[in-house]
Structures are given as structure tokens and as C-alpha cells.
């Protein structure tokens, strides 16, 4: 073990770990359940600490050696090389301060190691005075949340949804000449073409994707530079703008400084809106998956218009039974996402004065929802939609 210290005193930390006293205290006080702060938050924080170090060096507030080492280690965080150094749980301080300090401590100690110093000495790279320079958890955690949300939307969720939409569009075109009976109120109605029905599914998804993309506009506005309460205390004039420009350059995403830091830090409105867009995806997917499993009901005594791929045995007691399992999985995902949206809206309503201190639950739910929607859409497309056939005898 190694002795680390903070303003509360000293505490033992595993000798081989880079984290420090505040991370260790959080592990003591907040080892709750199995819900860890998502790793995407730390990758996002890698960009935050890197951008801050570059701006601080350019402004002469950090030496080239200290800034350069912080940047090297921030890159290690971004490149997922330090994942095991971020052990904290979701259920911690509502500002995310303990995860910010986890990042500050790890970058500090790893930098000290690279510079030949002693772990825990806080010299020559101090977690607060150097790694956190010009920042507060109250502006950096909201910034990391927006970065993590944008990267997950752009690199996981939207590509998966667009592929699913394309597959559904392909089916719609394939079945452009097949007439079937339409149904309203679950009762027989007038005829339509199968391709028309499926074009509706594609359009629903297309609209839902557009709403997700539109929600990105406010996520590009970041709180960095507001520091503790939005006034920018301890950050120099121009820091917010320079930081946002550097972050945009590093990520390739059009981040800008939030025009009002009091709104950016006192609320979670941009995250609530983005989560609502995910709920919109869930609502559309739920309709599509429910229609598919009803239309595939049978095979002898149901509607039986669709034949879904037979992926696995469906029953432990009924031989030969095959079930619409991919539809069931995506419907459960949609139910989960709608529940998570409710939690995010509730958390978003809990701002007090200059801070909404309900942040970890929001980013955990958002990233979880986006990830299961993305992965679920991929599986649903590959193992159900692509192989779906019409039962033309019906």
C-alpha cells in the first residue's frame, strides 16, 4: 500500500494504482451495487484535460514540461490504456466531482511517474493546481457528459439506426407489389401494399434519427469556462472560448462555448432533450417490433403473414417451437429506454440554484440507453429484419 493525502488527511491506496486519496475515499463511501461510471465519461474527460492543458500552456499558465506530460497521459486515457484506473460507481456525488478527481489524480500520478517523481507527492504535477487548472467539476463534468453523448450518438447509435432503416427500406421495395389486408383497431380494414406498410416503418425511423441528430445542437454547447457557479472564477478571460475551439479541433466535432453558463450548469436541459430523442427512437422501434411479431404469429393458428428467421429453439418443453425473440429483446430495450428517459427527466428537474447535482444518473442512463438501442438495432436487423420473409400463401 501507499499513503496518499487530501484535505481530509491521509489514506492507504494500493501501491500499484495511480488513483489517489479522493478516489479511495469514494470507493469506501460509494461502493454501491454494480453500476460503474461509464468508461465513455473518462474518455471524454481525457479530451477535457488535454484541451485544458493545451490552452493553459499557450497562455503561459503551465510549463511546457508539465502540460506536455498531462497531454501524454490524457492521450493514454483517450486510448483506453488506463481503464482499470477508473473504478468509481455511478451512485456518488451528484456533481461527478469524485470522477473528475479520479481523472485528476490518475493523470497527476502517471505524469509524476513519467517525470521520475514519487507517486502521491503531487509534485511536479498536482491534481488540482495543474491537471484541474481553470476548471471545476461543475463545468468539466457537464462538458465531459456532452462529449461522451455526442461520440456515442455519432459513432454507435446513428450508424446502427441508419443501417436498420436501410434494411427496412429494402424490404419495403422488395414487397412493392404484394397486396394485403390493412387493419385498424386490430380488425380487418381496407387493402394496402406490404411495401407501403414497411415504408411507414422506415419513415418512422428516419424521423426518429432526425430528432436525435437535431438534439446534438445543444449538446455541442459546453459549460467549460464557467468553473464553480458559471461566473468563470479562477479561469482567465477567454478560457471558455479557447477551450471550446481546442476541443472542437481535437474531437472533430463542432463544440462551442455555451452562451449562458448558468443555464448550462444549473440545468441538464440539453441532456433531457437528447434523452427524449432516444425515447422517440424507442417508441418507433416498439411499434415496428410489435407489428412484426404479431404479423408473424402462428405458425398454424395466428396471423402468419410474416416468417421470421428461426434462430434458436424457443421452448424447453414444447418441441419445435420457435419464437420472435429478437422482437422481444428490442421491445424490452425500448421499455428500458422509456424508463431511463423518465429517470433523466426527473433528474433534470432537480437543479438547485447554480448547479444541477444529479449528473451521474443522467449520463449513465443516457449512455446505457444509446448503447442498448445501438446494439439492439444491430442484432434486430441482422437476426430478424434481414431474414424476414412474406408468407405469400396467406
Amino acid at each position, binding site marked *: 500500500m501507499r499513503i496518499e493525502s487530501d*484535505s481530509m488527511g491521509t489514506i492507504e491506496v494500493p501501491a500499484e494504482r495511480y488513483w489517489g486519496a479522493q478516489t479511495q475515499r469514494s470507493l469506501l463511501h460509494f461502493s454501491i451495487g454494480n453500476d460503474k461510471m461509464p468508461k465513455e465519461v473518462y474518455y471524454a474527460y481525457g479530451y477535457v484535460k488535454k484541451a485544458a492543458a493545451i490552452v493553459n500552456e499557450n497562455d503561459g499558465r503551465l510549463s511546457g514540461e508539465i502540460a506536455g506530460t498531462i497531454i501524454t497521459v490524457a492521450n493514454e486515457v483517450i486510448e483506453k490504456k488506463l481503464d482499470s484506473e477508473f473504478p468509481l460507481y455511478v451512485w456518488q456525488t451528484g456533481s461527478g466531482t469524485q470522477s473528475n478527481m479520479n481523472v485528476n489524480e490518475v493523470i497527476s500520478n502517471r505524469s509524476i511517474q513519467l517525470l521520475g517523481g514519487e507517486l502521491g507527492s*503531487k509534485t511536479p504535477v*498536482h491534481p*488540482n*493546481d495543474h491537471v484541474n487548472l481553470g476548471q471545476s467539476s461543475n463545468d468539466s463534468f457537464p462538458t465531459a457528459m456532452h462529449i461522451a453523448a455526442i461520440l456515442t450518438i455519432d459513432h454507435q447509435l446513428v450508424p446502427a439506426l441508419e443501417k436498420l432503416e436501410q434494411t427496412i427500406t429494402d424490404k419495403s421495395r422488395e414487397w412493392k407489389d404484394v397486396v394485403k389486408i390493412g387493419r385498424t383497431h386490430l380488425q380487418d380494414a381496407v387493402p394496402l401494399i406490404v411495401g407501403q406498410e414497411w415504408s411507414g416503418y422506415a419513415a418512422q425511423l428516419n424521423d426518429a434519427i432526425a430528432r436525435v441528430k437535431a438534439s446534438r445542437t445543444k449538446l455541442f454547447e459546453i459549460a467549460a469556462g464557467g468553473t464553480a457557479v458559471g*461566473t468563470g*472564477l*479562477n479561469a482567465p478571460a477567454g478560457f471558455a472560448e479557447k477551450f471550446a475551439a481546442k476541443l472542437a479541433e481535437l474531437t472533430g466535432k463542432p463544440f462551442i462555448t455555451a452562451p449562458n453558463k448558468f443555464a448550462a450548469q444549473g440545468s441538464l436541459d440539453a441532456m433531457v432533450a437528447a434523452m427524449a430523442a432516444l425515447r422517440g427512437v424507442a417508441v418507433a422501434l416498439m411499434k415496428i417490433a410489435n407489428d412484426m411479431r404479431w404479423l408473424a404469429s402462428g405458425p398454424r393458428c395466428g396471423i402468419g403473414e410474416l416468417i421470421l428467421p428461426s434462430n434458436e429453439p424457443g421452448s424447453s418443453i414444447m418441441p419445435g417451437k420457435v419464437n420472435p425473440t429478437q422482437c422481444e429483446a428490442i421491445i424490452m430495450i425500448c421499455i428500458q429506454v422509456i424508463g431511463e428517459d423518465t429517470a433523466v427527466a426527473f433528474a433534470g428537474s432537480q437543479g438547485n440554484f447554480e448547479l444541477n447535482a444529479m449528473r451521474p444518473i443522467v449520463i449513465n442512463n443516457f449512455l446505457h440507453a444509446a448503447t442498448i438501442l445501438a446494439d439492439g438495432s444491430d442484432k434486430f436487423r441482422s437476426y430478424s429484419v434481414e431474414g424476414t420473409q412474406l408468407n405469400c400463401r396467406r
Partner: protein
Amino acid sequence: MLVTALSPVIGYDKASAIAHTAMDKKLTLREAALTSGFINAEQFDHIVDPRKMI
């Protein structure tokens, strides 16, 4: 948390020690800061001014 303004001058750890001393010994922040020896009265009055912190 007016002590926050001291961090850029004397560092987070010393500023934190002053804040804890003030709370523990029921001193004003100014009294605790001057007792600490990390900063003198003139510097303190110049830095810890709420009008300069907004």
C-alpha cells in the same frame, strides 16, 4: 467558499488547509488565512473580494 480565490495564488492544498482551520477553530476566513502564514493581510484583502470574483 470565498477561499477559492486563494487557490491560484497559494495552491489548492494550502487554501484547503485554511478553510478547514477556519471551520474547526471557528475563525473568520481572514483570521485563519493570516494565522496560516501563507498570505499577508494586504494580499488577502486584495484577493478575497467578492466584487472581483464575479
